[in-house]
C-alpha cells in the first residue's frame, strides 16, 4: 500500500514536471499568463507529491518493510528509529528521492515570491528547475527506484517494481546502514550538503532566465543574492559538518583527508564563493557580467558533477559506498546543460557588454578579480586531482590495443592524495588569505600603490606582533612563522576595519564603542556581515594551520597502569572493558590524562566491530581545549588484552578554532543576508 503510494506520487511528479516545462514554454510562445500560472502551479504541486513519496519511504524504512529492496539494504531491526529515518539518504536510490524532494522544496519556495516586477523570468525559472528535477526523478524512477520489491518467482528471487507473473512478495535479509554512517553526523551532514547543492540551482535558473528573456541587467543577481548566500551557507555548513564527523568517527586524528569525494563536495563551493564576490562588482561597478554568468554555470555544473561523483561509484573511496549505472546519464545531462547554458551566454554576449572599465590594478575590483582567479585556480587543481585518476584508468584500453603506447597508457590505478592537494592548493589558499587582508582596504576605482600602502600600513605593522609572539613561543620554521603572521595580518585588518568605523562613529555621536559597533553592523548588514564571515575564515584558518603545521603524534603499546608520553602530556592506561549489543561488540579503554604531570581528565577511546559487516569503527577519546586537542585512539591492529594495549596519541594544537570559526561563519552569514529596513529587495 505505502509502496504503491510512494511510487505513484513519484511517477505523478515526473509527469507533472514535464507538463510544467511544456506549459511554461507554451505560455511564453502564446504570451498567455494563464499557461505560465498553470506551470507555476505544477511546480508548486511537486512539493506535496514528493513529500508524500518521501514520507512513504520513511514509513517503510521505520517499519522494517524488508520486502522493499532499498529498505533491506540500508536498515535493520537493531537500528534506532532516528537512523532508520536518516537511511532515506543513506543509499543511492533514497538519496536521489531526497535530492528531488529538497529541489522541489526550494523551487516551490521561489515560486511563492512576488513576481510582479519579474514576470519575464518566471517561465524560464520554472523550466530550468523542472528540467533539473525531472532528471533526478528520471533516475529515481527508472534507474535507481527506492520502491523496488523482492519477489519470489518460480525461478528464484527477483527484484522488480511490479509483481512478475506467478510471483509473491518475499523479504530480503536486512543488511543495515554502513557502520560508519551510524552516527549523529548522518542526521546533519548529508542534508546540509544536499541543501547547498540544490539551492545553487536557483541562481543558475535565474541566470538562464535572464539570458533567455534578454533582461541582462543585474536584476537576476539582486533577486538571487540571498538564495546564493543561503546556498553558500548550507554548502559551507555541510562541508564543516563532514569535517567534524570525520574527526569524530574516522579516527585518523584529522578532519580532512583530501579523499576524492570530499574534494568533489568542495568543487561547487569554490566557484560559488567566487560568484558571491564577483556579483558585488557587478552591483557596485556594473562590470563582469559575462564572468558572473559563467561562474554560476560552472557552479551548477559542479553541483551536478559532485552528485555524479558521489552517486555513480566512479570513484571508489570510503565515501563511495554506492555503485550503480547512472554514470552515463549524469554525463549526458552535465554535457547538455553546460553546452546549452554556454551557448545562451554566447548568444547574449553583446547585451552583457558594459561601458564601465577597470581603472587600476590596485583597485578593489581588481582585487576581487584576483580573488576570483585564485578560487578558480584552486577549482582547477581540485578538479584535475579528482578527474585525472579516472582518466588514467579509463584510458588503459589504448595501451592494451596499441602495444607501442602500452608504457604510456598503462591503465594503472593511481592515488592522488593529500600531498598533491597540499602542495598545489596550499599556496593558493595562503594567497587568498593574504588577499582577504588587502582587498577590504583597497579603494574602488582609481587606486595606486601609494593609496593602498597608506591604507594597509597600520594593520601590517600590528600584525608583526604575531610574528614576534610566535618566535618567542619557539616557532622557528619560516613557513610556520609566515602562516602565523598571515592569519594575524588578515585578522588585524578586520579588527582595524571594525575599529576604525566604530571610532569614527564614537567621535561623532559620543556613543560608547560597543554601541557604535552594534549600530554599524545593524546599519550595513552586508558589509559588516561580510567582514564577520572573513573573521570566521581567519579563525578557521588558525585552526587549520594549528593542526596541519603543529600536530604531533606518537604510538606505543603500554601495559596496564603504565604511561605513554607526548610533549607535556602523559596518558596512563587504567582499564579495558568489552560490551556487546545486538549490532556490535565494543571495546573501551580508560585513560587517565596528565598535563605537566597534573591530572587533566579521563578519556574513553573505543573500537566497535559490527557483526553484519565485520567493519571496525574507531571512536577517539578527546580532550578538547582552545589551546589544543588531545586525541587518543585505541589502535585496532594490535592484539588487545587486559594487560596491554596500543594507543595512538595526537596533539592537535588550536584545532578548536576551526569549529568556533565555523559557528561564527553561520551567524555572520545570517547577518550578511538579513534584510535592511531602508533597502528592500
Amino acid at each position, binding site marked *: 500500500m505505502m509502496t504503491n503510494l510512494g511510487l505513484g506520487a513519484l511517477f505523478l511528479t515526473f509527469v507533472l514536471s514535464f507538463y510544467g516545462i511544456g506549459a511554461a514554454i507554451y505560455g511564453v510562445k502564446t504570451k498567455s499568463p494563464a499557461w505560465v500560472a498553470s506551470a507555476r502551479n505544477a511546480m508548486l504541486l511537486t512539493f506535496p507529491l514528493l513529500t508524500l513519496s518521501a514520507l512513504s519511504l520513511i514509513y517503510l524504512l521505520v517499519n522494517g518493510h524488508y520486502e522493499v529492496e532499498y529498505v533491506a539494504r540500508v536498515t535493520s531491526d537493531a537500528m534506532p528509529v532516528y537512523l532508520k529515518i536518516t537511511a532515506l539518504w543513506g543509499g543511492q536510490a533514497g538519496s536521489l528521492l531526497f535530492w528531488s524532494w529538497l529541489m522541489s522544496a526550494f523551487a516551490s519556495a521561489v515560486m511563492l515570491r512576488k513576481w510582479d516586477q519579474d514576470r519575464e523570468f518566471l517561465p524560464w525559472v520554472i523550466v530550468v528547475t523542472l528540467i533539473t528535477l525531472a532528471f533526478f526523478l528520471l533516475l529515481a524512477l527508472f534507474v535507481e527506484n527506492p520502491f523496488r520489491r523482492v519477489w519470489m518467482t518460480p525461478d528464484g528471487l527477483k527484484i522488480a517494481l511490479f509483481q512478475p507473473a506467478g510471483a509473491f512478495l518475499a523479504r530480503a535479509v536486512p543488511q543495515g546502514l554502513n557502520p560508519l554512517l551510524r552516527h549523529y553526523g548522518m542526521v546533519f551532514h548529508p542534508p546540509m550538503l544536499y541543501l547547498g547543492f540544490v539551492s545553487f540551482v536557483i541562481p543558475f535558473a535565474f541566470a538562464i532566465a535572464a539570458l533567455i528573456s534578454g533582461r541582462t541587467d543585474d536584476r537576476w543577481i539582486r533577486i538571487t543574492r540571498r538564495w546564493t548566500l543561503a546556498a553558500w551557507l548550507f554548502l559551507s555548513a555541510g562541508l564543516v559538518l563532514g569535517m567534524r564527523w570525520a574527526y569524530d568517527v574516522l579516527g585518523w586524528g584529522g578532519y580532512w583527508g583530501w579523499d576524492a569525494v570530499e574534494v568533489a563536495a568542495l568543487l561547487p563551493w569554490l566557484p560559488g564563493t567566487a560568484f558571491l564576490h564577483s556579483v558585488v562588482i557587478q552591483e557596485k561597478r556594473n562590470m563582469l557580467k559575462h564572468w558572473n554568468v559563467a561562474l554560476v554555470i560552472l557552479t551548477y555544473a559542479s553541483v551536478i558533477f559532485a552528485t555524479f561523483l558521489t552517486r555513480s561509484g566512479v570513484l571508489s573511496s570510503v565515501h563511495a559506498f554506492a555503485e550503480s549505472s547512472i554514470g552515463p546519464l549524469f554525463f549526458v545531462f552535465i554535457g547538455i546543460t553546460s553546452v546549452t547554458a554556454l551557448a545562451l551566454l554566447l548568444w547574449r554576449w553583446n547585451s552583457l557588454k558594459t*561601458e564601465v572599465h*577597470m581603472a587600476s590594478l590596485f583597485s578593489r575590483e581588481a582585487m576581487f578579480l584576483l580573488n576570483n582567479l585564485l578560487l578558480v585556480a584552486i577549482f582547477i587543481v581540485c578538479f584535475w586531482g579528482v578527474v585525472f585518476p579516472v582518466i588514467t584508468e579509463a584510458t588503459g584500453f589504448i595501451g592494451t590495443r596499441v602495444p607501442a603506447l602500452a608504457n604510456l597508457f598503462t591503465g594503472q*590505478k593511481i*592515488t592522488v592524495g593529500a*600531498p598533491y592537494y597540499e602542495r598545489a592548493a596550499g599556496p593558493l589558499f595562503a594567497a587568498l588569505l593574504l588577499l582577504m587582508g588587502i582587498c577590504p582596504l583597497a579603494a574602488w576605482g582609481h587606486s595606486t600603490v601609494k593609496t593602498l600602502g597608506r591604507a594597509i600600513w597600520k594593520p601590517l605593522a600590528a600584525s608583526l606582533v604575531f610574528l614576534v609572539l610566535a618566535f618567542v613561543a619557539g616557532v622557528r620554521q619560516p613557513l610556520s612563522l609566515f602562516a602565523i603572521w598571515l592569519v594575524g595580518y588578515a585578522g588585524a585588518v578586520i579588527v582595524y576595519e571594525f575599529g576604525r568605523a566604530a571610532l569614527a562613529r564614537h567621535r561623532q555621536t559620543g556613543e560608547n564603542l560597543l554601541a557604535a559597533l552594534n549600530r*554599524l553592523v545593524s546599519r550595513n548588514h552586508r558589509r559588516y556581515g561580510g567582514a564577520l564571515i572573513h573573521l570566521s575564515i581567519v579563525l578557521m584558518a588558525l585552526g587549520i594551520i594549528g593542526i596541519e603545521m603543529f600536530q604531533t603524534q*606518537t604510538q606505543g603499546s603500554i601495559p596496564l597502569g603504565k604511561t605513554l608520553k607526548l610533549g607535556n602530556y602523559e596518558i596512563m592506561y587504567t582499564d579495558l572493558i568489552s560490551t556487546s549489543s545486538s549490532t556490535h561488540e565494543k571495546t573501551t579503554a580508560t585513560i587517565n590524562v596528565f598535563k605537566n604531570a597534573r591530572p587533566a581528565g579521563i578519556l574513553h577511546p573505543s573500537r566497535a566491530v559490527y557483526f553484519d559487516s565485520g567493519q*571496525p569503527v574507531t571512536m577517539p577519546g578527546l580532550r578538547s581545549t582552545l589551546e589544543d586537542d588531545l586525541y587518543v585512539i585505541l589502535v585496532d*591492529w594490535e592484539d588487545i588484552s587486559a594487560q596491554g594495549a596500543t594507543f595512538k596519541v595526537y596533539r592537535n594544537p588550536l584545532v578548536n578554532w576551526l569549529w568556533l570559526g565555523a559557528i561564527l561563519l553561520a551567524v555572520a552569514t545570517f547577518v550578511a543576508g538579513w534584510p535592511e529596513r531602508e533597502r528592500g529587495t
Partner: protein
Amino acid sequence: MKKRVLLPTVFFLLLLTVGAASAQSSTPVAVTDDQVNAVASELFCPECENIPLDVCPSQACIDMRAEIRQMLEQGWTKGQIKNYYVERYGDRVLGTPPARGWNWLMYVIPPVAILAVAWIFYNSFRTWKRSSLTKDTQSPEIQSPPAVADDYVARLEAELKKAKK
C-alpha cells in the same frame, strides 16, 4: 592464484635478504611504532583507496605495517620500502603519482590552465584599461569615480555631520 601469491612472496624474501646483507648491522634493530608510522604515512592502502597506510584499519594494512617493521629491523631505508611496495602493488600505493609518462599531465595541466585563466584576466584588464584611458581623454565627464578609501565610512561621517547640524 597460487602464482600471484608466490611471486611477490619470493620477491619480498629476496629483497629482505638483499636488504639485510646491505645493512650496516647484522642484528635486527628495535623499531618503534612511530618509526613504522613515519614510513606508512607516505604510503596508501592498496585495497581501500585514499586511506594512508598508517591509519588504515584493514587487515591488509595491518599486515603491511608488520612487514614494514620487519624491513626496518633489517635496516631497509624508507626509499627501499616504498620502491618495494610500488613494485608489488603499482603506483597507487604512493600519495602522488610519480612524474613519468602520462603522469606528467597530472603536474603540467593545472599550472597551464591557471596561467591560461590568468592570461585571459590580465588581457581583459589591459583592454579595459586601454579603453578606459581612451574614454578618459575623450570624455572626462564619464571618468571612473575617484578613490575613496572607505566609501561607507565617508558616507557615514557625512551623514553624521549632517545630523549634527
